[in-house]
């Protein structure tokens, strides 16, 4: 059964690459350009997981993560950022991110982490908090 993911990333090149990769891995994928857009989409769409960039305009990943944890405590979140933002990644883990992946993103590692983090939520029956 295909899981549905929200990818929140401001750089279009990266989000389109992620979309390709994840659809190839049999996920349904919805793209958002920043945290605010991501939150708006979550009102409409029930997703099984979120792939969240940290550094974005309008609303960054940390702020969105806080809101997601407040409103949808159980959705698994995988944050992504460059190594030089290590501090932000640590903050994201403290705010409830389930795991992180470093940019530039390694495709095999992405596949492994997505299947572990997002499929685990399926087994625990934590889908769709609504």
């Amino acid at each position: 059964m295909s899981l549905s993911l929200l990818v929140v990333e401001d750089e279009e090149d990266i989000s389109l690459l992620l979309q390709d990769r994840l659809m190839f891995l049999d996920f349904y994928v919805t793209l958002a350009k920043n945290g605010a857009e991501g939150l708006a989409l979550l009102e409409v769409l029930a997703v099984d997981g979120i792939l969240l960039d940290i550094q974005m305009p309008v609303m960054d990943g940390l702020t969105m993560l806080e809101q997601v944890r407040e409103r949808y405590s159980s959705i698994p979140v995988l944050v992504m950022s460059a190594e030089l933002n290590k501090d932000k990644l640590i903050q994201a883990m403290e705010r409830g991110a389930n795991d992180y992946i470093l940019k530039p993103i390694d495709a095999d590692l992405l596949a492994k982490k997505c299947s572990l983090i997002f499929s685990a939520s399926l087994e625990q029956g934590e889908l769709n908090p609504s």
Partner: protein
Amino acid sequence: MKRILIVDDFEPGRLVLREKLERKGYTCEEVENGSEALKNLQASHFDLVITDNQMPVMTGLEMIRSLAKNSNDQQPPIILLTGNPSNNLCSKAREAGVEAVFPKPYNERDLSLAITRILEPR
């Protein structure tokens, strides 16, 4: 090419549906409430209507009832999306001829299956 009418006052809701449906090869039109939807449905043919319920001017259910009452010829199948999926609303929607009701936030997989079932019957 199959044509779908999307009815929702919430812009991100319309956009995300449109993007997904167009990727599947459907043509989409968007309107913001039930009254605009009725005008569009009178003006041209649609193969499916996907409508939110809670909207200003005219709700989804009001639009569906008015459609059932006024159209002599066949009306398109309708999928209703709602933030408040009470039993009452669901049964009213069924009575008015709605094909499927989905709570919001909806699951893409479920909605997608329903659309395929309606538009591409085997």
